[in-house]
């Protein structure tokens, strides 16, 4: 019995499987390149971030050293100021300049003075 199915043109029958395979190959290639691009991107990001972290760490270290040095200098200056301002040194300097302790002078206050109305 003869088949009544529609005849498929030979050229068309050959073309379809070939195009499917090509499409599959293309999607695999795309996926591979996408994966590769992502891998490169992540690798690059990782390297950049590591570099940034190392660089920031170094900067923090330098700043910490700088802060420590400033604190040391500050302490030294405070000590020098305190030493220069000690009463012993001030007294010697004051005497050199002709100053000396003087007894305080109080003016006598009479009862009448203390009862004066305040302005």
């Amino acid at each position, binding site marked *: 019995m003869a088949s009544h199915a529609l005849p498929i043109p030979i050229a068309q029958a050959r073309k379809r499987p070939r195009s499917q395979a090509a499409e599959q190959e293309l999607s695999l290639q795309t996926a591979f390149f996408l994966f590769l691009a992502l891998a490169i991107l992540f690798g690059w990001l990782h390297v950049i971030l590591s570099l940034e972290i190392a660089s920031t760490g170094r900067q923090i270290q330098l700043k910490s050293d700088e802060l420590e*040095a400033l604190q040391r200098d500050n302490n*030294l200056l*405070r000590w020098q100021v*305190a030493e220069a301002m000690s009463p012993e040194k001030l007294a010697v300097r004051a005497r050199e300049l002709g100053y000396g302790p003087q007894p305080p002078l109080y003016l006598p206050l009479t009862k009448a003075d203390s009862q004066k109305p305040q302005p």
Partner: protein
Amino acid sequence: MTGDDTAKTCYYRLILLGLCLTFGFSVILAQLFQYQVLQHDQLKQIADEQRDREKVVLPQRGVIADTHGYLLATNLVRWDISASPPLITDPDDLATRLSGLLALPNEEVYTRLTAEKPWVLLAKEVPQQTGEAILNLKADGLICEAHQVRVYPEGELFAHVLGIVTNSGDGFYGVEGFYNSLLKGAGGKLQIEQNPVGDEIPVPPLNFNPPQQGTSLILTLDRNIQYIAAEELNRALEEYQAESGTVIVMDPQTGALLAVVSSPTYDPNHFAEADVRLMADPAVSNMWEPGSIFKIITWAAGLDSGTISPGTTWYDNGAIEVGGRVIQNWDRRGHGLVTMEDGLVQSLNTVAAFISTSVGKDRFYTYLRRFGFGDLTKVDLSSEGPGMMKLPGDADWFPSELGTNSFGQGIAVTPLQMITAVAAVANQGRLMKPHIVRQFITTGAHSQERQVVQVEPTLVRWAISRETAQTLTDMLVQAVEREGSSKARIPGYRIAGKTGTAQIPTAYGYHPTDTIASFIGYAPADDPRFIVLVKLDRPKASPWGTQTAAPTFRAIAERLFAYLRIPPDDIRLAQH
């Protein structure tokens, strides 16, 4: 060989290669499994130990300042400079530069830098600025290690009261010793990564536990009053040729110490060169038989117990027998019928013995305990001594001690105990706890927020009643105004005070000539702003407190009136 044979040979070779590769990868995989899974924990620990390093971060010791904030103790850095000769590239140039900075001969430095040793010491305890300059050379093989040192800008002035800090970072004596754990703080920890050579890898620390910085202290001491006291004490030691001495200035209303000075002293910046016997503070550690200034306590006991009043009379024939011992006056004379006020003004031992025996031993010693004798004052200074007071019932107490103790013999007190007790009389009978710290300032470990804790005055107890204190103050004013202590008088001011001339006990009885002269006084008598104790040991110019300690008190008080801006009494009272 045919083509088929060649293909077969290649095929078997490929199989062999595949097997070799498979075997090789299997070995690698097995090893990886061994390292990554089976030995994971153990190897990770070894790796961490090699890579991670824990650095101890030392805290800054708290600073100490006077009541106005002037720095009394702070920290500086000293450097230890060493080198690793194999790492030095140009020893000639480095030696030239270092010799100039370290003030060492060029040849000596060069010899050390070229020594065939892995490490050589170049200099220790290098000052901060020199160390920083050497550090800035950034030379390979040069090792600069910093360590903290304690420095005292005022030098000898506060030596006894502040104490010292040794190279280990621990404080001894004075405030440094008493508050060592607070001042010292607690160390922190920093976990860092290092390379195989041991150099720090510049990445953020793995873990950081910051140090707890030491607490800073603001003292009640006033450096100007301290200077006045020290200057007048040194002048007195020279003028009266005394061996040593102590001056304490206190605010009687709060118990705050304003000045604590003893001489001879030492420089705490170079304590290693000082005599260790000078380091304990004589004001709190040394005890002495106080002599006549102790009569203030005897009179307080007599008045407060109601046994005597200022007008009570007693006939003084020059001697009184107590417990089998005859007690005589300092002038070995009888003064006839005297009032209790006369007895205090003329500092009569017989009257003192009469009062103590009349009060009775139990009540008399109860009063002594109320004034704090025989106990620590609990001042916040290291190495405080309790003095020595024998009590009835003790194996070494004799009935005669009731008589001798009344005028300050046979009982030993520290200068701080004595001034604290008399300050109670000045403070209307309230015995205050002496203290030297006004504020504690703490900075948090994780924040820069400062926490300030104020020290409030502490009332220990009422030693005597307000009325007794008032009556006794009036009698002490008379003691300055009328006799004996006239060299302590300052025109325009009512000063309450008492002199003392104490004999010095030796292994063979009392020393025939040497004495300890003292004066204790407070002013203005009606509203005391300060109380001063002057103690001069073995003055040669005169053995009497009236001739040596009293004028020293006056010199200090005169300057304190000016410094504290206390006008004469008539002006001050008119203002009120």
